[in-house]
């Protein structure tokens, strides 16, 4: 059994972005750009979601030439359930933003 908590607005933004296309694997940097979170805010969220079994991760099987394989993320079924629950009880301000706009908290 894993534990979670009422998600923060930043976590809801990440969940919403990942839940928008559940089958698609996402890169961390691109995800941060989409929801407007810096690495210092994004990775703690990803780590916690992963620790709670809400996020699954994988490594690129065909990385770009001369670059190491990157980590990929998508929600588990439990993560999708939490995303749906969070989306139904979250105010509009916490929805992910389309334009990159860095924020400084986790």
């Amino acid at each position, binding site marked *: *059994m*894993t*534990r*979670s*908590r*009422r998600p*923060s*607005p*930043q976590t809801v933004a990440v969940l919403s972005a990942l839940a928008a296309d559940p089958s698609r694997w996402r*890169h*961390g*940097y691109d995800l941060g750009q989409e929801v407007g979170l*810096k*690495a*210092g*805010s*994004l*990775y*703690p969220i*990803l*780590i*916690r979601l992963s*620790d*709670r079994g*809400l996020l699954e*991760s994988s490594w690129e099987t065909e*990385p*770009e030439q001369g*670059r*190491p*394989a*990157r*980590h990929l993320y998508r929600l588990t079924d*439990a993560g999708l*359930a*939490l995303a749906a629950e969070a989306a139904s009880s979250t105010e509009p*301000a*916490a929805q992910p933003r389309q334009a990159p706009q*860095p*924020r*400084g*908290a*986790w």
Partner: protein
Amino acid sequence: MNPSDRLLSAALRALPRERDEWGRAMRAELTAVDSGAERWRFLLGCLRVIMLRPGDAWTARLVRLACCGVLAGTVAGIVAGIASSANPGQKLREGGWILTLLIGTYLFGFLAVTSRRCAATTRVLLIGGGAGLAIVAAAAVLMFAAPPVPRSVGPAVLLVALGALGAAALAQRPHDDRAAALAGLFAATVGALGIVILVDVIASAGPADLIPLVVPVTLPPAVQVSESRIELVDPYIALLFLGALVSGFLGAAALGTRRRTYS
């Protein structure tokens, strides 16, 4: 390997073994960032992750240990004071239950906010605890820079309120009201308790010029100071009660933000 890669590689050695994969993930992601300035910004974020260690309960444990240590020291000091008084049995009967209630309330707040199930993150605990210590440090600086210690508790209450608001504002960014409440209440609790301890230490062992004369001037100067040392702490007992009240709210808020369980 460019400088940012080197720096991140070196910093990642501080990550615990179970976070190795996340360290490799951040390194790989850094190499995918093409813009130089953006690369450094990404690096700074990664360094912050490494320093604050999300999911690591050590910070909460250390904060809990420190708070309980301070409380234990406070209890020991009070008990020693009672034991050395003329009639310890009577003092204990008269004030024992109040002391137990006060210490118990502080303990409740500290244990609740540092519990594993509380929503207070490492950042919230560091902001709240740091602001609380800053409140005490600011009070000490003001007392030594402009002696004596204020006879009224008003300036201390104002300082605690300002520190708590500052902590709440810092933790609230960008828009996390729950973090703001926990950080503000934690800062106020630590600040109030810390100032009372500070005043008690000054009253017991501080230089005479820090002691405000609150007894009749007809007494010899040495007696004025020694008697004023005893009287000085009394107004600050109100701050001790205020801190306990805030700690009660802190505990309630911490319980109210407990993590829910998902299967």
